[in-house]
C-alpha cells in the first residue's frame, strides 16, 4: 500500500511538472505571438492541457480528491476551448483580421453572407 502511494505520488509529480511546463509555454505564446488569433490559440491549447495535467497530478498525489478533480478537469475541458472559440468568432466578426495575409479565407465569405441575411431580415 505504501509503495503504491509512493509510485502514485511520483506519477503525480511528473504530471504537475508537465502541466507547469505547458502553462509556461502558453504564457510565452501569449507574450510572443504576433496577433490575437495566434495568442488565443497558444493561450487556449497550452493552458487547457497544462491546467488539466496539473489538476490530474494533484489528484494522483491525493487520491481522496480524485473524483472532484476529474469533474474539474471535464469542466476545464469544456469551458476553456468554448470561451476562446466565442472570443475568436466575436473578434473576427467585429473586423479584426489575421496578421499574415492568407490565400484562402472561407470564413470571410460566410460572414459576408450572414451579414446580407441579417440586413434582409
Amino acid at each position, binding site marked *: 500500500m505504501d509503495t503504491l502511494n509512493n509510485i502514485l505520488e511520483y506519477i503525480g509529480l511528473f504530471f504537475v511538472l508537465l502541466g507547469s511546463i505547458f502553462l509556461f509555454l502558453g504564457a510565452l505564446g501569449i507574450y510572443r505571438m504576433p496577433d490575437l488569433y495566434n495568442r488565443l490559440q497558444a493561450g487556449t491549447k497550452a493552458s487547457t492541457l497544462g491546467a488539466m495535467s496539473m489538476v490530474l497530478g494533484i489528484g494522483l498525489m491525493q487520491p481522496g480528491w480524485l473524483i472532484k478533480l476529474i469533474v474539474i478537469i471535464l*469542466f476545464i475541458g*469544456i*469551458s476553456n476551448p*468554448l470561451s476562446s*472559440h*466565442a472570443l475568436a*468568432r466575436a473578434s473576427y*466578426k467585429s473586423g479584426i483580421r489575421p496578421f499574415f495575409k492568407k490565400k484562402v479565407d472561407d470564413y470571410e465569405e460566410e460572414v459576408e453572407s450572414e451579414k446580407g441575411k*441579417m440586413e434582409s431580415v
Partner: protein
Amino acid sequence: MKKYIIFILIAILGLTLAQTFKAIPFGADRRGDLENPDKVAAYYLKESPETLQTANSITAIVVNFRGFDTLGEVTVLFLAATGLASILYRKEEEDEEEVERVRLPSSSLVRTGAKILFPLMLLLGIYVFVHGHLTPGGGFQGGAIIATGFLLMLITYKHFETNHKVMVWLESLAGLAFVAVGLYGLFAYGSFLQNTHSVGTLNDLISGGLIPLIYIFIGIKVGTELTNILDILLKIKKS
C-alpha cells in the same frame, strides 16, 4: 502642464500612504496570544473553532461576530438593484418590439456548451454557499457564481427569460428570512442575530448553529439579485 499636476498629485498621494504605512510596525505580531486573547484577531481565531464549531473563521466573523454588518451589506446590494430597476424599468407591453438582448446569434457550439455548463455552474454556486462555513467562499461568492451561470444563458440565447416574479419573490423571501433568523436570536437568546447554543461538531455539514442557514439565505438573495441586475442591464433598445 497637465503632466506636472498629475505628477504632483501622485507624489502627494504616495507621501500620504507612506506616512500611514510608517505608523504600522513592520513584522510585529498583531495577532496576539492565541491562548489568552487580548486582541480581536486572536479572539476570533480562538472562538470560531471552539465555541462556534465553525471551520472557516472568516465566515464566523462575517456571519456571526459581525452579522449585523452583513445585513447592512445585503441591504446595500438590494438598494443598488432597486435603483437600477427603477431607472431602467420598461413596461411589459413595449418590451416585445423595442427591446432585444443580443444583436447577433451565438454559434451552435456556444449554445450547446452553455446548455451543458449552466447546470454545472448552478451546482458549483450552491455547493459554495452551502459549504460556506467549512471551505473558502460563502453566500456572496456562491451567489455571484450562480449569476454568472445565468449571464452565460442570457447572452447565449435570445429568448432565454428568467421568471421575473419568481426571482423577486425568492429575493424578498431570502431577505426576510435573514431578518427572521436575527429576530429569532433576539427573542430566544436576548440579542439580535445571536447564534444558538447547540452548534454541532467541527467540520460537520450541519455545524456552526445558524451560520449555514444565514449563508444559504444570503446566497439565494445575492444570486437572484445579481441575475436581476444583469437581466435589466442586458436589455437594449433596438436601433
